[in-house]
């Protein structure tokens, strides 16, 4: 939550609303047992937070056809509106719900807030966000998006054919009435049983698939593919019937049901637009969270991962260097659609290039650099997939890591594993993973001895895990004397760079927004001093004296530590 909070604090600057606007002057009714609609209407943040965390669908409509955001806008609860928006409530113009919210907004502040969120990239999880970028990274797709947006701009990039830096080469191109969409088989197979079957049979070797059926409309198909990647559907109302048909063919049943229901709804929907709009402008937006859990992107990829993991081979650590892989297994393995093997420790993991590449820049580079370096050339014999070897990593950690890469979630992290996970996260440039691990680790830290806490402090500083570092510093600052008595703490002091004596570096205002950013590479002891001052020190003049006092104390502790060391 703290992380979330920081983002919103900085965001406030550019939407031109003062933080004071969010401190609601009105009395807040509490609805401890209300549903999300009641909570939004009442502006009961506590209840709303609870409900949102429990995973309800923020975009659901009640019996009056209204969404929670609508009630919050109507009642003018700025904080509730913000909370809902941050949790993925849709407020886009020309959608039924979005227009209603804009229309119902109690005052200009609410409207401004809606506008600010509308202009933002859609709130997607890291996984969906990364995959969406991958999809849009394909030049063909992006130019289509621009066409949809009305800015037709075929620049020279297309002709030169140079892949843009953000893209990973797609392995299949659909042509619908001549207009192309590029995609990756793996993603489509994971999302649609029909497409999966097709890719295993008819389309197995084809790179280009052409459709020219009248009924298959390009915008609908594009929207669906985009949805497969990003778990977010955005479509013109006109195309929805086409989409429902495509869904039926592709066997995306839950999506089909929702779309069909929505089509009937749209027929009678009365748009509350601020401006007139014609039918073609109307849009419908669906967040993945409206679907049942098992039909969302993470679940689909998780299934894919499980199949791949089952197929992955654990090498017996025997002396023969030639891995024993029977040729007969090759054909069986095809059902996981893996296109790369990663050898970690003793195990060969079957993975998917597109997912690795979209989640980690390291893997993207590595996969595209297979030609230039030694890797990829010494692939295992009898094995037709490229094999990459990752060293200095346990297979357990790697398994956890790919679990996160595929599903955006981490289940039961062992605190002992945490360190290695931090290492992997920073090494593979998977920064969101660090946060996920930290979240899993925090409860564990509450009952560790001071000595271990020092260890975590060092670790978190090394890997730049702000959350843990902050936590450790807080604990140490508030229990400074306890730590001073701990030998490990004193020893640690010796290993740290000395605090800077320059008082100008210190912030006089404790905990100013943005201060955390500096800490990444900040001096631990400087930060500790700040924290300590926050807890212990007096005001203004006294503060400087306290600083000196603290520095003295540290020096003393270090002396003790040195003595202890030499005594050994």
């Amino acid at each position, binding site marked *: 939550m703290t992380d979330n909070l920081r983002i919103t604090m900085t965001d406030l600057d550019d939407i031109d609303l003062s933080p004071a606007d969010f401190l609601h002057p009105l009395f807040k009714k509490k609805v401890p047992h209300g549903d999300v609609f009641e909570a939004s209407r009442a502006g009961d943040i506590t209840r709303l937070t609870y409900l949102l965390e429990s995973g309800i669908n923020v975009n659901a409509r009640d019996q009056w056809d209204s969404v929670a955001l609508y009630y919050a806008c109507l009642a003018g609860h700025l904080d509730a509106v913000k909370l809902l928006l941050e949790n993925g409530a849709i407020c886009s113009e020309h959608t039924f719900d979005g227009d209603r919210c804009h229309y119902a907004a109690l005052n200009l502040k609410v409207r401004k807030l809606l506008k600010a969120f509308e202009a933002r990239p859609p709130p997607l999880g890291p996984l969906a966000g990364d995959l969406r970028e991958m999809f849009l990274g394909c030049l063909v797709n992006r130019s289509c998006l621009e066409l949809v947006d009305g800015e037709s701009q075929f620049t020279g990039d297309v002709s030169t054919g140079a892949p843009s830096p953000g893209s990973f080469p797609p392995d299949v191109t659909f042509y619908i009435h001549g207009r192309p969409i590029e995609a990756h088989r793996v993603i489509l197979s994971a999302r649609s049983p029909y497409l999966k079957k097709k890719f295993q049979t008819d389309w197995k070797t084809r790179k280009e698939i052409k459709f020219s059926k009248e009924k298959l409309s390009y915008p609908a198909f594009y929207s669906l593919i985009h949805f497969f990647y990003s778990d977010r559907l955005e479509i013109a109302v006109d195309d929805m019937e086409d989409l429902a048909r495509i869904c039926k063919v592709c066997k995306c049943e839950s999506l089909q049901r929702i779309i069909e229901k929505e089509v009937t709804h749209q027929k009678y929907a009365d748009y509350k637009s601020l401006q007139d709009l014609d039918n073609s402008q109307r849009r419908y937006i669906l967040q993945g969270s409206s679907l049942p859990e098992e039909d969302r992107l993470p679940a689909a990829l998780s299934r894919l991962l499980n199949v791949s993991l089952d197929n992955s081979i654990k090498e017996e650590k025997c002396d023969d260097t030639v891995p024993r892989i029977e040729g007969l297994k090759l054909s069986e393995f095809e059902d996981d659609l893996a296109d790369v093997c990663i050898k970690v420790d003793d195990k060969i993991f079957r993975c998917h290039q597109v997912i690795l590449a979209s989640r980690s820049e390291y893997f993207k580079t590595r996969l595209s650099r297979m030609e230039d370096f030694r890797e990829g050339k010494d692939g295992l014999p009898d094995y037709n997939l490229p094999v990459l070897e990752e060293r200095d990593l346990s297979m357990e950690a790697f398994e956890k890591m790919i679990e996160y890469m595929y599903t955006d979630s981490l289940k039961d992290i062992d605190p002992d594993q945490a360190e290695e996970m931090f290492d992997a996260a920073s090494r593979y440039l998977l920064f969101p993973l660090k946060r996920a691990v930290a979240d899993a680790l925090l409860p564990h830290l509450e009952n560790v001895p001071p000595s271990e806490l020092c*260890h975590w402090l060092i670790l978190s500083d090394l890997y730049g895990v702000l959350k843990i570092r902050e936590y450790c510093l807080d604990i140490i600052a508030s229990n400074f004397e306890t730590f001073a008595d701990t030998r490990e703490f004193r020893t640690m002091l010796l290993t740290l760079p000395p605090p800077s004596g320059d008082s100008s570096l210190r912030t006089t205002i404790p905990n100013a927004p943005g201060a955390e950013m500096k800490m990444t590479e900040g001096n631990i002891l400087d930060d500790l001093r700040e924290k300590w001052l926050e807890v212990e020190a007096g005001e203004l003049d006294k503060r400087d004296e306290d600083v000196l006092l603290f520095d003295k104390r540290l020096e003393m502790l270090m002396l003790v530590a040195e003595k202890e060391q030499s005594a050994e």
Partner: protein
Amino acid sequence: MSSSNNNNNKYCEEEEEEDIFYGRRNNKKKRMFEIEAFKHKVVVDPKYGDKTWMILEHAINQIYNHNASHLSFEQLYRNAYNMVLHKFGETLYTGLISTMTSHLTAMSQCIENTHGEMFLEELNSKWTDHNKALHMIRDILMYMDRTYIPSNRKTPVHELGLSLWTENVIHLSGIQTRLRTTLLQLIHKERTGQVVNRGLMKNIIKMLSDLGPLVYQVDFEIPFLEASGEFYKVESQNFIECCECGEYLQKADRRLQEEIDRVSHYLDTKSESKIVHVVEKEMIENHMTRLVHMENSGLVKMLVDDKYEDLRRIYNLFHRVPNGHVTIRDVMTSYLRETGKQLVTDPEKLKDPVEFVQCLLDKKDKYDEIISLSFSNDKTFQNALNSSFEYFINLNPRSPEYISLFVDDKLRKGSKGVSEDDVEVVFDKVMMLFRYLHEKDVFEKYYKQHLAKRLLAGKDVSDDAERSLVLKLKTECGYQFTSKLEGMFTDIKTSQDTMEGFYSTHGTDLGDGPTLAVQVLTTGSWPTQSCVACNLPTELLSLCDKFRSYYLGIHSGRKLSWQTNMGTADLKANFGKGQKHELTVSTYQMCVLMLFNNADQITYKEIEQATEIPSLDLKRCLQSMACVKGKNVLKKEPMSKDIEEEDVFLVNDKFTSKFYKVKIGTVVAQKESEPEKVETRQRVDEDRKPQIEAAIVRIMKARKVLDHNNIISEVAKQLQPRFLANPSEIKKRIESLIEREFLERDASDRKLYKYLA
């Protein structure tokens, strides 16, 4: 950082280098980090940084030597990652700079040592090498790029590589100037028609623009533009000395195209506007006036010869430079005014009004064509054309009359072999000219006269053509302008009805007498001249009286007066050898001829007395009957051209004609004679007076109080669609209104007028 594994063969040199820092992790030992972890410092081997850097440096060298395929990306990345993680980022970064610098220095040596042509090729190949290596190095050092560099505000690896290249290769004194001169020489070669290696040029220039806009500009673009300016200055000077305007423009156009082509082939797209500007400035802007005014081939010549192609080119090219179009337009306008003025004042042309208007129309067509074909229908040019026409058409005060005559001619001659559509087209064009006229009321006056003649003579070809023209005038000038014209049409129509009525009531009791056709013309709608009624022959008088009593019986309270000067008559005549002819004559002529029923020989005096026709008209009508060959039904003594008071007339018994019907026209000047013109003018002026007064009163009614200058300007503005009011005339009208107590002068300020309601 776990330090639990330092007991695991830590710096095991005989194993692969990559395992210097970590041993393979052993999971069973994971639990050990607790307390022992801090007995041993986290700091590792102090030489760790240097050792790892050695590996990386070696790798970088290998990459530069094209041996990358023996390297393991994973290992290198991991090493770089560990270095940064353990705060050896600084070592890594500075090491990178120095290694790269040394490689680049070596490369620059190679490049410098090349001779002649090979220089660019070598530079290009070295650049490709460096670029490739740089990408690989960047990928290996990705972790540093992502963490160490932003937090320490250093230059990212790729940009660093580029700036090092700039510094160590491009900006080396031995290379910098050589590169610049080589490039400029090559471009010069290409301009002079030689073939150069465009692919190579493209690569080199791409390199410069990759190195940043500043490098591209300083090292290439600015000198390139300067050299181009110089080149085109000289070239354009040469061209202009020896070429015609059209030819020069062709060359300029081609050069321009070449430069745009060049940009698309191997320059940065941002340079296009700049180089194009240079060419425009040197080739067009600097020679603009000279080109336009070139003797025998300049703009005027093109206009005269209808050189659409050249005109289009000049239009398009001059469009690129400021004031280009203004220059063309000015020249065109002044030429148009000059020639137009000659045209309207040319006494030869003035002799034939039809010819005169036709010339104007042709001129208009010609320039319309030029503007639509060559000047892409530019509005400003159309406006210039219109203002020029307006200017010179109004130079000749007789233009309104001539235009009306032209229309008259077209309508009289009628659509013999001309389709109605064509007539429409001609009328549309005439309306264009009409729009230019300042004195539209003068036109109206003449038009009315001519229309009256056509209507009364029953000569109008088609009612449709007449009406369509009236409709055009109506859309142009409003209802007021044409209401009287339309009244004339209605009069003719009602007259037909009246005559039918007359004959159906009186038909029986008229017997074999002459047939009468009366056209009742509403006073005011028609351009009637107050004329003295002549004495009609007795045969007719009774008939006329009958009609008069019939007409007044139907319409009470009206007054009829005979316009004998406008009528016609058909006479049956027997000549000497028993020849019978039907003569179509005017009313006057009829009166004269009827006298010969009772006498063989009559003197002029007697005729004048008997008929009381005004002498001027009488002379004309006698002249037409006695002096025109083939129509001479009368003989005159003596046989002279002009009619004298003492002349004697007798019937010409020897009159012969091939036709049974003979039409005897009156000798009438189509163009107005001088006194008539003055008279028309006076009438026009007279008509204007009430209009001016009406305008003044309208304005003052709205404003109540207004000063003199404003009244003048507002009145002029209001009357503009009809005519240009003369300020002094307006002033006179104001005074007249003051006299009649519509207005009064303000007591304190004499310049102010007040409206008295």
